[in-house]
């Protein structure tokens, strides 16, 4: 049973992509399929980032330690969807012209935010295997805290695109804010219990 969880999660993470590709080849994405595909894939990247960040709090609340073993896969899928999202943007909006990408990054803050988030996630994906984890030791954890910065940037990326209705963007931003706030609170607690311990020692 335990052994089936990982392959199952792998298939579940592929489902959104599969259903979108299916819709695309069957002309169900509307008159602007490229944009639709890019937006949907991007939304799934954000949802997978939420799922990745949910692992720690869920483990704490449920006490189910083995949840941690799923985090790497969720994170890697998040990076995969973000990369597809970025490639679709490069294809449909920039025609793979590097200068246009540069122009977009410089001139449009929501694109700079999204692109920076992807850049932050790139080394995290590259160092996600166990060998790198062992090699980097304490630095690995430090490096992978970069995911918090990525979460902030992804929230900005979504919020900056709002035309007039903040509803959906606010939901994403709020979820990211809660996930980060939970970590901040946990960090504060650790700090204070550590200093309490010091006081007791003295």
């Amino acid at each position, binding site marked *: 049973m335990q052994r089936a969880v990982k392959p199952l999660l792998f298939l579940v993470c592929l489902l959104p992509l599969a259903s979108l590709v299916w819709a695309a080849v069957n002309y169900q994405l509307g*008159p602007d399929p*490229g944009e639709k*595909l890019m937006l949907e894939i991007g939304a799934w990247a954000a949802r997978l980032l939420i799922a990745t960040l949910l692992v720690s709090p869920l483990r704490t609340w449920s006490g189910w330690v083995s949840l941690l073993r799923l985090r790497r896969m969720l994170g890697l899928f998040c990076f995969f969807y973000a990369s597809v999202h970025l490639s679709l943007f490069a294809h449909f*909006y920039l025609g793979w012209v590097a200068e246009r990408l540069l122009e977009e990054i410089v001139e449009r803050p929501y694109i700079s935010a999204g692109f920076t988030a992807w850049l932050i996630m790139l080394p995290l994906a590259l160092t996600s295997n166990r060998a790198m984890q062992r090699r980097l030791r304490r630095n690995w954890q430090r490096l992978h805290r970069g995911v918090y910065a990525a979460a902030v940037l992804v929230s900005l990326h979504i919020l900056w695109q709002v035309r*007039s*209705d903040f509803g959906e963007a606010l939901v994403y931003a709020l979820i990211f804010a809660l996930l980060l706030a939970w970590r901040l609170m946990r960090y504060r607690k650790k700090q204070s219990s550590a200093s309490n311990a010091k006081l007791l020692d003295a």
Partner: protein
Amino acid sequence: MRTPFKSGIPSSEITSESAWLKRRQLMTAVAGGALVGSALASALVSPGASALAAGQSLRHRPATANSPAGFYTTESLTPYEDVKRYNNFYEFGTDKGDPARHAHKMSIDPWSVRVDGAVDKPGVLNLEDILTGFDLEERVYRLRCVEAWSMVVPWMGFPLSDLLKRFQPTSKAKYVQFYTLLDREHMRGQRSFTSSIDWPYVEGLRMDEAMNPLTLMAVGLYGKPMPNQNGAPIRLVVPWKYGFKSIKSIFRIRLTQRRPKTSWELIAPQEYGFYANVNPQVDHPRWSQKTERRLPSTLFSPNRRDTLMFNGYGEQVAHLYKGMDLTRDY
């Protein structure tokens, strides 16, 4: 080919404002009633409006290569189905598919447009007056959205100038202000508490822009009555401006001396100006305006093309902006 038309309606047939108000009160009262009410309501429904609802073809003069310059283009049309399912009509939600899903809840029958402000003869046009009282003609226009996509649509309607002249604008009329219907019950976007638009949606034109022959009041597309999601029963089409200027489901037209503030100007004046002329040299802060995606596009070809100054209608409208700095008055 020309089809015969009825001549324009005499101003005596235009409903007075007080009669219009009374009629609306009656409708509201009727809507409150049960069975008896609905029987009364159907008795009040005009023949013109029910023709609209039935989805019949409307008589009109088709656009051809011989039409005046700008009224027609040989570019391939965006298919009817795509024009109907890809819309920005935030009254029904912000997703492109939301209007097609939800706009059927809006009732366009009965419908009337109030025209007031700086006019000698303020009054109300009922939908049947509009459909039978104006010479309907086809215009094949490019539609360029500020989000950098575009379509080619065969509209059906009549020049806004024809409508305005009947109400006799005074010398004080310098601008025309348009209002979309306000109907929170049936327009879910207007109920959204996270929306920053101050409903109803408002747009405006300068008087000379409004009187330009290209400026169209459209009541249909593809020879059929206007689908709800495209702005039924009557909307504005200003082909040389970004799509958000072409206000949908118009309920009221007011002529003013001072320039009205438009809905998008109120939310983000640094992004959306009053003029909003299509201009590839002036970028919107979030979307480059140099190129556009002509819809439908496919997964492998974005169908990208260069955006033209005034959306290609410079010959017809550039003179309106002579001496103006369009990077400032964007």
